[in-house]
């Protein structure tokens, strides 16, 4: 575990030095503000309908749940892609990955270390921006009119705090595995976009159950399970030989 953390810390430090990382934060901030504004508008419409505050709150809560769930998923996946694109691509271009493979580290330790370096900041930043968005919507649209702070329900909170990070973890491992064995960076990007859209579309279908429903948690767990199976299958293909040969380009 200690060596996994060594790899993770080094990759994290490298990520924090890149401009792309800060550009991604600025982009995500923009998305959160825009989405917050749109949700705030919907909440205003509900309030202006003249419903009683309790009715408004019970109408707002599912909306907050849906927004928070989709926002967390989208942001974590976005960060995942941005952070991932830098660390390993550079290692393959500079072929420092080859030296790393000759050390006493196992392939599993290298993959896990690199995956955690993508997963941890993605989840932390995703959660910070998601809850920042919830706080912002409450602060600017809900509290001034209703005097109440409205949080998403238990089901979306469980999904955001447990299941979405689980999906993102396997997504990060999958991305690392793909990047390790695919030579062409364009193919890698196309594959990553495919995976992200696949997960996004797969989960957007859960919204017809309503974000308050526990179905969203179970369906998300289903997506996580599919990702786990794909990751396990792909991890069999990740060999040192494939990594070295795919680093040539």
């Amino acid at each position: 575990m200690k060596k996994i953390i060594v790899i993770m810390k080094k990759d994290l430090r490298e990520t924090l030095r890149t401009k792309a990382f800060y550009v991604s934060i600025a982009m995500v901030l923009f998305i959160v503000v825009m989405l917050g504004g749109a949700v705030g508008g919907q909440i205003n419409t509900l309030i202006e309908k003249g419903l009683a505050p309790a009715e408004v709150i019970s109408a707002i809560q599912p909306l907050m749940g849906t927004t928070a769930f989709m926002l967390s998923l989208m942001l974590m996946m976005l960060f995942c892609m941005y952070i991932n694109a830098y660390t390993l691509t550079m290692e393959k271009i500079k072929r420092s990955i080859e030296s790393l493979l000759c050390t006493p580290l196992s392939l599993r330790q290298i993959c896990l270390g690199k995956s955690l370096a993508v997963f941890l900041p993605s989840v932390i930043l995703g959660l910070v921006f998601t809850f920042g968005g919830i706080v912002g919507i409450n602060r600017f649209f809900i509290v001034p009119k209703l005097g109440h702070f409205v949080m998403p329900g238990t089901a979306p909170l469980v999904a955001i705090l447990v299941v979405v990070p689980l999906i993102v973890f396997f997504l990060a491992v999958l991305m690392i595995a793909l990047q390790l064995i695919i030579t062409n960076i364009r193919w890698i990007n196309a594959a990553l976009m495919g995976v992200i859209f696949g997960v996004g579309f797969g989960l957007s279908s859960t919204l017809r159950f309503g974000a308050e429903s526990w179905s969203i948690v179970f369906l998300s767990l289903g997506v996580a399970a599919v990702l786990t199976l794909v990751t396990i299958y792909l991890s069999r293909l990740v060999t040192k030989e494939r990594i070295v040969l795919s680093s040539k380009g």
Partner: protein
Amino acid sequence: MNAAINLERVSKNLGNREILKDISFAVEPGDIFGYLGPNGAGKTTTIRVILGLFKPDSGKASILEEDISRDEARAKVGFILEADGLYDNMTAYANLDYYCQIYGVPQAQAKEKIKDMLQLVGLSGRASDKVSAYSKGMRQKLALARAMVHEPTAGVDPTGQIEVRQIILNLAQRSKTVFLSSHNLDEVQRICNRIALIDKGEIKLYGELEKLRREMGRREVVIDTAIRTTEQAEVLDGILAELKSLPYVVSCRREAQKLHLQLDGRGDVSEIVAMLSREKLGVEEVRKGEISLEEIYARVTKSGE
């Protein structure tokens, strides 16, 4: 004695290409082993097999009698690859510190060790510079320091900067094995005690360098004649054709007064000396030829074409 590196009938294909064809050699502890061959001969693939990056399709590769695919076996190996593997965005110190942590060097020792290693390769003044600012030579030195982070510092004299060649020689003196793949034949000749020469995926030559030079040089004969006049030189040129027709003479050429002959195993120098005497061409000295690694290399790789 157990071999430090042992390859037994290793074959490796990449796609449809046969890169290594049943190659075998052993590197003994304390050897400075030169691994030579033209571009595309299979040197890099051999090194990748030795370092556990490639699995042989058949045959066996081991380091200190351990399968290199075991993580513990790789902990005993330091390496510098063609791509030095240094991180440009990190300082020299941070690069070494990263590898110290990977090799499990205790934090308390790591600081001192990094300091010693940087001093040894003459980079202590540039420890906090980013590697991206380093020249190629400095990068090589840093890569060498990195290759030694898993080594006990005892025995290494960090008091002053020494040349890379001397560092390699010092390692061998401490019974460490050095496997050196290089195109610099002069350097290999100076520091390596044993070599292997690979061409088209096959080991063409393997053994102790001095022994190989002696064996191959034994067939080289240089005869210093006593010719002084143009007429004598013309007679000698006439004899050259006669010498070339002898069954044991592989090649024959004249350089001023000297006659360079390459003989096969049946070679008889006395017969040649007698021929020269018959023509009244005096012989001042007969020497066995000195053969350089460069000549060995050229001869072996050329014969394979």
